[in-house]
């Protein structure tokens, strides 16, 4: 057996049991060289996770189905080898960091893998030290994993896998639930692992901007590999990435659409973009830019009354954690506010006060004239709807209709009215015709929209959304945001928590950045995103197009805006 290749996939096909109609992967061939860093991208349902799970034997060992072809990892035939044996060769890190950590402290978490392989204790001690250094968690030895931040938890998960000394690491969307700087931390570790030794790295990722550091990018769709090659080349092909449905890099997309050229050598990042901008003799048309700014202003003048007011809010959890530490803000009718902050900054705690799920320790919240201290969640629920992050935390009914009818029914609406409200809500989320479907059989994006509809059916004036785009692919994210924008245009006030920065820059009117329970910045999106350095200090990173415009001393928020105010074209 040749062992010069780390991974050899030959004609892999897999059909999940219970879903006999669709093949998750359709005859994939993929070789990964020793020491290579490969990023796998593609929309939901592309078969990326299926591919990852078949590398360490979870497929077909753990998840059953029809298996064809072969996968060799370090020369071992994966099919027929126990997952626990494969753990010596390849470490797998999952997206859900909460569920993969289970020990009482960091040391024990990392020791678990080596213990299983009977590594002597002295060596385990050495390994812990080494691994903690690699994942930058020195000094956390005795901390409980539950007390770590999201980024730290995911780094610990990587560490716990590294400790068995596999020479291949595969990460399945490791950064989906992390804030931008937490993401960066994971990618830094990946890069260092790649540089420092002959680790082979396979990472499944949605973020195009981060894939640039890889040796090779593999783009999948519908169970097939569409294209692979140097990320600089593959990702420069904006037309292709647009077509597949992964997010195109903003800088080449902007220049391609602006200059209308097919095969020119486009820059990929803001720095090169800036140079290219100058070379091409482009400049910002001040008149047009002023138009953008005055459009913002007009929109602000069109807002209604204050509908939600937060006064000196403090929230202290029973364990003494001061999660919200003196926040005041007023939100007016028809505003679209994005609340940003790192994992654990207190943003979820803050918004949970808005519909009375949490009571203030100090201060007051007034929603539509009602103080949340004096009214029940049920009453405040008429004014404000709350869409939780994970749609699976609220879906329970057998049909989409019943799910959405839950709220109006419980509020005593007549049958006629329930029907009317359900169809109105379904129209709003573009799921008309789905009434009789089983919500559990829908895709994640569709379930998320059902969750939104089930809140809309109560006809709230204000809608709070906790990370509505997390875990969705680019197309689904875009669709979700268009829907929220439509709701906003039709008069709803929107308050949204998110980590996805391009979503904020393209859709939000106003940004409040929270750090350690305090508001660091609060203002119109354009003004806040101009302060790139300060954002970075709050663990937030602006999208590429915003960074480029900031280098040009203006702040534009989307490719469309940038195209609109670029002047100097021949």
């Amino acid at each position: 057996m040749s062992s010069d290749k780390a991974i050899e996939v030959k004609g892999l096909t897999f059909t999940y049991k219970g879903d006999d109609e669709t093949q998750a992967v359709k005859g994939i061939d993929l070789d990964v060289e020793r020491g290579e860093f490969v990023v796998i991208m593609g929309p939901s349902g592309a078969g990326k996770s299926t591919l990852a799970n078949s590398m360490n034997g979870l497929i077909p060992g753990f998840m059953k189905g029809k298996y064809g072809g072969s996968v060799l990892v370090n020369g071992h035939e994966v099919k027929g080898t126990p997952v626990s044996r494969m753990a010596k060769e390849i470490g797998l890190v999952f997206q859900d960091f909460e569920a993969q950590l289970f020990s009482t402290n960091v040391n024990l978490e990392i020791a678990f893998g080596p213990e299983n392989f009977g590594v002597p204790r002295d060596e385990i001690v050495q390994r812990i030290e080494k691994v903690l250094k690699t994942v930058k968690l020195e000094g956390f030895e005795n901390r409980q994993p539950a007390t770590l931040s999201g980024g730290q938890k995911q780094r610990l998960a990587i560490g716990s896998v590294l400790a068995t000394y596999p020479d291949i690491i595969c990460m399945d969307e490791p950064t989906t639930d992390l804030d931008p700087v937490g993401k960066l931390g994971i990618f830094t570790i990946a890069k260092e692992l790649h540089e420092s030794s002959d680790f082979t790295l396979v990472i499944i990722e949605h973020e195009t901007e981060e894939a640039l550091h890889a040796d090779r990018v593999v783009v999948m769709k519908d169970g097939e590999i569409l294209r692979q090659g140097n990320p600089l080349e593959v990702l420069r092909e904006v037309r292709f990435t647009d077509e597949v449905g992964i997010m195109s890099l903003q800088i080449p997309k902007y220049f391609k659409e602006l200059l209308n050229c097919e095969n020119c050598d486009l820059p990929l990042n803001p720095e090169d973009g800036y140079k290219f901008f100058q070379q091409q003799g482009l400049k910002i048309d001040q008149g047009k830019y002023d138009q953008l700014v005055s459009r913002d202003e007009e929109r602000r003048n069109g807002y209604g009354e204050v509908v939600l007011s937060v006064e000196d809010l403090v929230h202290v959890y029973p364990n003494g954690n001061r999660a919200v530490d003196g926040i005041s803000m007023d939100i007016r009718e028809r505003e679209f506010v994005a609340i940003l902050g790192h994992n654990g900054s207190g943003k979820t705690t803050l918004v949970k006060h808005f519909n009375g799920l949490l009571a203030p320790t100090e201060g007051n919240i007034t929603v539509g004239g009602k103080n949340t201290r004096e009214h029940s969640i049920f009453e405040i629920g008429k004014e404000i709807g709350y869409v939780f992050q994970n749609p699976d935390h609220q879906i329970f009914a057998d049909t989409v209709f019943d799910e959405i009818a839950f709220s109006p029914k419980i509020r005593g609406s007549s049958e006629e009215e329930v029907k009317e409200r359900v169809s109105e809500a379904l129209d709003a989320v573009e799921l008309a015709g789905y009434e009789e479907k089983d919500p559990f059989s829908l895709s994640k994006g569709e379930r998320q929209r059902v969750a939104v509809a089930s809140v809309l059916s109560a006809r709230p004036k204000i809608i709070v959304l906790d990370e509505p785009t997390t875990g969705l692919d680019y197309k689904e994210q875009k669709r979700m945001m268009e829907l929220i924008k439509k709701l906003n245009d039709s008069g709803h006030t929107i308050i949204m928590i998110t980590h996805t920065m391009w979503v904020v820059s393209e859709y939000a009117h106003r940004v409040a950045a929270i750090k350690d329970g305090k508001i660091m910045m609060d203002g119109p999106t354009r003004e806040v995103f101009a302060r790139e350095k300060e954002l970075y200090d709050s663990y937030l990173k602006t999208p590429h197009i915003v960074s480029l415009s900031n280098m040009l001393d203006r702040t534009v928020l989307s490719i469309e805006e940038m195209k609109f105010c670029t002047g100097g074209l021949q």
Partner: protein
Amino acid sequence: MDMFLYMDLNTYVHRLDPRTKLLLMFLSFAVGVMYKNIVMLVAALVLVLIYGGMGHILSNLKRIKVVLIMITLFSVVIWSIAQSGETRFLIFTLEGVLYGIMIAIKTNLMIVAGMVFLSTTKIEEIAEGLVKIKVPYRGAFAFSTAIRLVPMIVATSYTIIQAQKSRGLDLESGSLFEKIKKYVPLMIPTLVSVIRGTNVFSMALESKGFGYSNNRSNFLQLKMSGHDYLMMLIGLTIVAVASYLKFDPTAYNTLINLFPWGDFA
């Protein structure tokens, strides 16, 4: 939110070997099961509380105070009606009240003893302690995993309650039957989320080599020290004395005479 019962401190009790703590817990259970005498049970409860106080974990009892109080109330109310006796007032009997108190102390004694054990012993130590007393590793791990999953389930159901309350679910009002129906929107998402979570959990376990071989090594080093033997000795002595009291008729009569109404043997 911290859902683990374990309190990460470094006290005398925390430093004891898990086997010692396991033994002490079972001895407390034994006394609880053996006796139907209020005096004995109160004495045992006091000893367990002192032992917990040494571990600085009594504050953890606050978290289950609702459970403890409910058990006491239910036990007293139900037994005072159900137990027959001579000293009757309305539908209650005095014997029943005392019997209820006895059962309440018995139950609470065992819960508190279990709580002290879980608050002072890491889950890994429990598993390792069980392995050391020859429980197969997989069994020990399954047991410790069950303890581990409780906080996960509690945290998930907490989020789900909040999500459904936000949609207008009102758990407080309505008749009993209506209330039961109201729990459907909570049960289904909880089950779905827990099944999903445990699925990732078991995949993560296998991906870290769980079950690779039966010769596992151990990062935690368990060693019985003088303190362990001392505590075991104290525990065993107390139970021995208690057994003597139970099985020697004269001694037992002396005990009963301390508080004749509190004995139900």
